[in-house]
């Protein structure tokens, strides 16, 4: 008897083995099935819902996939041999109920149990996103989620520029951009996706050029139009996971809010004025930390200000770096929402004062009578507000 066979006989005496059909039943009841084969083997197929941790990294990575050592763990390889060694390794780590799947994936297939071909990162993505993958909160699974995600940016201006740039860098696979404007030289003080050479070009195509230069595989979906009640459903109804509001006027902000409520899309909100900014996440269908649901924009401000009292116009000016700070807060929230990690800014308004270098967190409460997001209310329809920008004299009074 060879040393290998002697060792295998020992393992078979101590590690319980389980038939694939019984393993699948246990998996359905909460046991964790770990496919320990090599990536090129797994690329051809793996049991549905299995964790995939290559044997060589099993002990190093298993605790992220199976934090509780009391969980039943089922190890699977190609033929049921490597899984014995894997199971023994997990036992030594302290997992109490570890079993090896008899006959491995070969028998799993002949028994016609469900398999899937897992999505896989290619070599470029593996290298590009390696600093994400090193973190267990992201990992390969999280990176795949980012790659499959679709985020719609409203505006490719001060806020939209840093948002779109960092989302492309992070590997958000599909980035939609709504903007009807062209690049102006006065934009370049803060709108960092555009370039001097592209003054006069559409902002959507300029942004696409920068994003795909950073990451050629970024899928940039452009909407060179102004958002109105006529096109908002068509644009928002394309399966977006998150909408990031970087618009610069009240009519658009209210359309974005109302469409996000209607389509149940989280609305990552940021706004800026001179040296001050605000950021929050409007997501009424997600409960806030205290168990109460989150508010929408209308819970906070039911109606836009009338033109004579509106404080916000291009003439007011803005510190060029400020949209970077607020836009990146929006980008962070977006990535967290896609990954399903951390505590989103739901029910909290973060205000930022650049001159004081001060962040303040304010609590936002949902309005139980909100016409748009209160549960059980029929959608009241969109409103096309008139651009609420003060006349020059009033602007001077309000902002000078």
């Amino acid at each position, binding site marked *: 008897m060879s040393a290998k066979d002697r060792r295998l006989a020992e393992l078979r005496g101590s590690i319980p083995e389980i038939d694939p059909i019984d393993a699948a039943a246990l998996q359905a009841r909460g046991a964790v099935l770990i496919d320990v084969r090599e990536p090129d083997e797994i690329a051809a197929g793996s049991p549905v819902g299995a964790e995939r941790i290559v044997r060589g990294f099993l002990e190093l990575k298993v605790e992220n996939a199976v934090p509780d050592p009391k969980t039943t763990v089922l190890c699977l390889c190609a033929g049921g041999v490597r899984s014995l060694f894997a199971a023994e390794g997990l036992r030594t780590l302290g997992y109490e109920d570890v079993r090896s799947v008899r006959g491995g994936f070969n028998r799993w297939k002949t028994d016609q149990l469900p398999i899937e071909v897992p999505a896989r990162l290619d070599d470029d993505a593996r290298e590009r996103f390696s600093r994400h993958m090193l973190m267990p909160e992201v990992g390969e699974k999280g990176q795949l989620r980012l790659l499959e995600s679709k985020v719609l940016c409203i505006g490719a*201006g001060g806020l939209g520029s840093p948002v779109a740039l960092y989302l492309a860098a992070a590997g958000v696979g599909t980035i939609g951009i709504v903007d009807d*404007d062209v690049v102006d030289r006065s934009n370049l003080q803060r709108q960092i996706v555009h370039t001097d050479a592209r003054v006069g070009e559409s902002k959507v195509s300029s942004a696409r050029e920068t994003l795909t230069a950073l990451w050629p595989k970024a899928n940039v979906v452009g909407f060179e139009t102004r958002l109105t009640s006529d096109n908002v459903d068509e644009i928002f109804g394309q399966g977006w996971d998150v909408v990031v509001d970087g618009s*610069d006027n009240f009519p658009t902000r209210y359309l974005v809010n109302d469409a996000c409520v209607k389509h149940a899309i989280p609305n990552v909100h940021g706004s800026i004025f001179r040296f001050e900014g605000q950021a929050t996440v409007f997501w009424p269908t997600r409960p806030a930390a205290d168990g109460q649901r989150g508010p929408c924009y209308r819970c*906070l401000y039911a*109606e836009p200000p009338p033109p004579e009292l509106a404080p916000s116009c291009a003439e007011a000016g803005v510190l060029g770096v400020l*949209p970077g700070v607020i836009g990146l807060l929006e980008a962070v929230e977006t990535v967290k929402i896609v990954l399903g990690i951390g505590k989103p800014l739901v029910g909290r308004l973060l205000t930022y004062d650049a001159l004081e270098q001060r962040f303040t967190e304010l609590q936002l409460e949902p309005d139980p009578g909100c016409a748009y997001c209160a549960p059980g209310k029929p959608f009241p329809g969109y409103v096309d507000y008139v651009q609420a920008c003060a006349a020059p004299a009033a602007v001077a009074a309000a*902002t000078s």
Partner: protein
Amino acid sequence: MSTATIRIPTPLRSFTGGADEVTVGADTVRGALDALGERHDGLIPRILTETGEARPFVNIYLGSKNVKTLDGLATTIADGDVVSIIPAVAGGRS
């Protein structure tokens, strides 16, 4: 009477001579706003309606809480409290 600090948002600082904070003595949030209005002409109509309620595009906070969730403008204030005026701000794209 308590001494409170009122934080003035950028769009309204033209009414306070550029000051970002104003310290007032008052017992309630309404009293604090009244004191602010006495000192800085034209400011209160931006914040309150003619009937003295907060305008729908302005929120008044005491500390981290919207006064709507407390006793509204009748909410009492204590020494050192911070009252923040948080108007809707649209800017971002242009």
